[in-house]
C-alpha cells in the first residue's frame, strides 16, 4: 500500500460514500457476548439469499449495552430505526418485514423515549437543543457509527486531520496552546491538566522520550476504555501520534488489559493499517517526524493503573509503585521522560486540535471542561455507556438517561470504583465535575458509575470494595498492606453484628493513616468507599452495631 501524503489524505476523506440501504450491527465485546454475531450472520445470509442490494456492516458499541444485540436499519430518505435484543430469527424477520415489506417491526424497536437511544447512533456530535438529548459525544462520536476495523471510514470522519495539521502547519507549541485553552484534564480520574503533563514531558531532559496509553482499565464495573478501543481505535491512535509529535517521542506503547482480547485485536489492526498508510513509521505523511507504536499487555493487577507501577510492568517487572517525585514526565520508562495518558484523554485530542481549544472549553462548567464517558451499571434500568457534558447532574445521568432503578428506588451511586465513594440519592442534583465529586468524598474516577437500589447494603458494598483493594495491594508499603487488612477485619466484625462504637472509631483512625501515609493512590483512596458509606448512611452502620439486622434497614 502506498504511503499517504497530506493531499492523499484529503482525497480519501472526500471520497463520497455510496448512499444505500445499510444495516449496522454493534459488534463489540458486549454485543458479541449477547449473540450479535448470530444476528450479523443471519442478516448477511438473508440479504444474499434474497439478492438484496443492502450493505450489512459491523460497527462498534453504541453504548446501549442492556439492549444488545443492536441492529440499526438506515434506508435513504427515512429516519433510521434501531432494533434491540435481536436474535438470528429476529434478524430474518427484520429483513422480511422491514427491508422487503417496508413495515417497521414494532415489537423489536428500541423505544426512543430512552435518552440512550435518542443519541446513540448517527451524527451525534452536535450539541443538543434545550430539552433535547442530554448526551453529547466527542469521545464516542464514532462508536456505533463507523466500522472500527476500517481505516477509510475513520478518515472519512475527519480522521488523521489533526495529525496532518500538526505535521504541515502546526508545531508542538500550537498543540500545547490549544490543549491549554481547552482545559482538558486527565480522564483516568485524577484530573491533572493535560497540557501541563505534555509540556513537562516535552521540556524534560532525556536521551529518548515515550508516550504510553493507559488502557489497563482496572475499575471492576467499568468498561468505557474497552468500548472506545473496540469502537474507534484510530481515534486513540491519533491521540498517541499527536502526543508523540508534541513531546518528541519515537515510540508509543499501548498498555492494555489482557482480559480485553477484542480491544487488543482492534488496536493491533489499527496500528497495522496506520503503518501501511504511512501514519506510523518513518517520515509520517512525508514529514521528518517518525513514530511507531507497540502493544504491551497487562496481566491482571489493579495497581498497574498507577503510573509508576504501570511503568514497572511495561519494563517486565512486578507492578509496584515507587515514590514520586521524580514524576514519570521527568523519569519514567527506562528512566527517560514518559507521558502516560488514559484512553479517553487521548480520544479527545484530535477533536480539540480540529475544532479548537475554545470549542472544547465552552462545553462543561468551571474547571471541568468537555465531556465525560460513564459506564452506568448495577441496579439501573438501562445500563450502558453515556457521554455527557461536564456539569450534567447525577440525577440526569441516572434517572433521565439510565431510566432510574430497574426495581425499587435508587439508594446511592458509586463513582470512582474502589477509589471512589457512595453518593446518596438526596445528593443526586450534584453536577458532575472533578471538584463537586471530591467535595462529596468521592472522585470522578475513570468513569464507573454503580447504581444501588434500596435493597442493597452499603456496608456490604464497602466491604466488597475494601476486599478488592486488600487483594490488589502490592504489599510494598505498610500503611496500605497492613491498614487495609486491619480495616477489613474491623468491617467484617461490624458486618457480622459483633462490632461496637470503638470499632467505628478504629475504622476512621486507620483510614486516616492510610490516606496520609500510603505510597500510591491505591492505598490513599482505598478507605473512600467505607468512609463515604459511614458518612451518608450512619444509621445503617449503627443498625449493624447493635445486633445483626436486615441489610437495608436504613
Amino acid at each position, binding site marked *: 500500500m502506498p504511503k499517504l501524503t497530506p493531499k492523499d489524505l484529503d482525497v480519501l476523506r472526500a471520497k463520497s460514500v455510496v448512499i444505500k440501504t445499510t444495516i449496522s450491527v454493534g459488534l463489540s*465485546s*458486549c454485543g*458479541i*457476548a*449477547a*449473540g450479535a*454475531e*448470530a444476528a450479523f450472520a443471519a442478516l448477511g445470509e438473508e440479504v444474499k439469499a434474497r439478492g438484496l442490494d443492502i450493505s450489512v456492516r459491523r460497527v462498534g458499541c453504541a453504548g446501549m*449495552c*442492556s439492549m*444488545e444485540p443492536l441492529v440499526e436499519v438506515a434506508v435513504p430518505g427515512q429516519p433510521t430505526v434501531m432494533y434491540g435484543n435481536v436474535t438470528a430469527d429476529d434478524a430474518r424477520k427484520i429483513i422480511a418485514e422491514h427491508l422487503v415489506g417496508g413495515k417497521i417491526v414494532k415489537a423489536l424497536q428500541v423505544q426512543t423515549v430512552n435518552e440512550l437511544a435518542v443519541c446513540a447512533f448517527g451524527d451525534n456530535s452536535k450539541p443538543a437543543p434545550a430539552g433535547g438529548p442530554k448526551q453529547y459525544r466527542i469521545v464516542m462520536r464514532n462508536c456505533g457509527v463507523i466500522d472500527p476495523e476500517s481505516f477509510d471510514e475513520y478518515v472519512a470522519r475527519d480522521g488523521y486531520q489533526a495529525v496532518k495539521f500538526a505535521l504541515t502547519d502546526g508545531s508542538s507549541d500550537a498543540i500545547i496552546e490549544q490543549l491549554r485553552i481547552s482545559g482538558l484534564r486527565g480522564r483516568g480520574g485524577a484530573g491533572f491538566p493535560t497540557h501541563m503533563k505534555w509540556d513537562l514531558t516535552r521540556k524534560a531532559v532525556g536521551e529518548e522520550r515515550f508516550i504510553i496509553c493507559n488502557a489497563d*482499565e*482496572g*475499575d*471492576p*464495573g*467499568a*468498561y468505557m476504555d*474497552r*468500548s472506545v478501543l473496540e469502537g474507534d481505535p484510530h481515534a486513540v491512535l491519533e491521540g498517541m501520534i499527536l502526543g508523540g509529535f508534541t513531546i518528541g517521542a519515537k515510540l508509543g506503547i499501548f498498555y492494555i488489559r*489482557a*482480559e*480485553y*482480547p*477484542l480491544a487488543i*485485536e482492534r488496536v493491533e489492526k489499527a496500528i497495522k493499517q496506520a503503518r501501511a498508510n504511512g501514519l506510523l513509521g518513518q517520515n509520517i505523511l512525508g514529514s521528518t517526524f517518525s513514530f511507531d507504536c507497540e502493544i*504491551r*499487555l*497487562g*496481566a*491482571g*493487577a*489493579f495497581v498497574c493503573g498507577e503510573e509508576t507501577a504501570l511503568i514497572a*510492568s*511495561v*519494563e*517486565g*517487572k*512486578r*507492578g509496584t509503585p515507587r515514590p514520586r517525585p521524580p514524576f514519570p514526565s521527568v523519569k519514567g520508562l*527506562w528512566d527517560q521522560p514518559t507521558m502516560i495518558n488514559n484512553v479517553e484523554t487521548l480520544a479527545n485530542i484530535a477533536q480539540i486540535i480540529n475544532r479548537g481549544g475554545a470549542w472544547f472549553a465552552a462545553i462543561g462548567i468551571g474547571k471541568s471542561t468537555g465531556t465525560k464517558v460513564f*459506564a452506568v*451499571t*448495577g*441496579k439501573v434500568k438501562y*445500563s*450502558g455507556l453515556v457521554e455527557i457534558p461536564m456539569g450534567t447532574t447525577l440525577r440526569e445521568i441516572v434517572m433521565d438517561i439510565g431510566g432510574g432503578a430497574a426495581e425499587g428506588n435508587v439508594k446511592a451511586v*458509586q463513582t470512582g*470504583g474502589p477509589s471512589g465513594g457512595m453518593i446518596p440519592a438526596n445528593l443526586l442534583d450534584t453536577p458532575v465535575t472533578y471538584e463537586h465529586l471530591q467535595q462529596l468524598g468521592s472522585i470522578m474516577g475513570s468513569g*464507573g458509575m*454503580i447504581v*444501588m437500589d434500596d435493597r*442493597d447494603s452499603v456496608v456490604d*458494598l464497602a466491604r*466488597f*470494595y475494601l476486599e478488592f483493594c486488600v487483594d490488589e495491594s*502490592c504489599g510494598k508499603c505498610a500503611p496500605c498492606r497492613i491498614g487495609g487488612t486491619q480495616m477489613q477485619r474491623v468491617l467484617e466484625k461490624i458486618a457480622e453484628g459483633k462490632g461496637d462504637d470503638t470499632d467505628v472509631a478504629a475504622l476512621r483512625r486507620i483510614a486516616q493513616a492510610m490516606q496520609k501515609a500510603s505510597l500510591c493512590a491505591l492505598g490513599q483512596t482505598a478507605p473512600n468507599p467505607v468512609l463515604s458509606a459511614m458518612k451518608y448512611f450512619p444509621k445503617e452502620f449503627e443498625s449493624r452495631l447493635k445486633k445483626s439486622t436486615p441489610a437495608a434497614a436504613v
Partner: protein
Amino acid sequence: MSTTETKAPAAKPAGTPPDAISLIAKRWKNKRGSLIMALHDVQETFGYVPREVALKLAPQLGVPVARIYEVVTFYNYFKLEAPGRHVISVCMGTACYLKGAPEIKERLMAHFGIKSGETTPDKEWHLQDVRCIGCCGLAPVVTVNSKIIAKVKPADIVTAVTALYTPKEG
C-alpha cells in the same frame, strides 16, 4: 439468560511442538522488558506456566528463574497449575456482584465440591473469579472457556454451566 460464543482465547491443550519455548524466547529476547509478554505467550501455548517451561525459558531469555516466579505470582492472570478442561470464570465486577455473583459462585462451589481457584479431581472443571470482563450491561456474567453465559439467575447457573460440558475426545 443467553449463551454465546466469543473470541476470547481458550486454553490450548498440551502437545505443542517441543521448540515452542525457543520460538517464544526468540520472539522476545531482544526486546526490552518483554518478560510479561513472553509469559503471555507461554500461557497461551500451554494453558498455564509449567515449571519445566519456566526452567527452560529463563536461560534462553537471559533472566533468572526467580524473576519469572516473581512476576507470575504477582499477576492474577498467570497460572502455575494446569486448569481443568472447562474453566468456569465467575465475573466479580461490581455490577455482577450487585446482581448475584456471590450466590452464583456459592452454587457452583457446592455443585462441583471445589473452592474458587480449584480444579475438580478429574481435571474436568476449574472454578475461578475474574475481576471484570467489561460486559457489565449483561451482568451477571459467567464464562466457560470461550462461551459466555449472560444475565443468568443464580438458580439456573448449574444447569447452564453443565450444559456446556463437552466430552473428552477419544
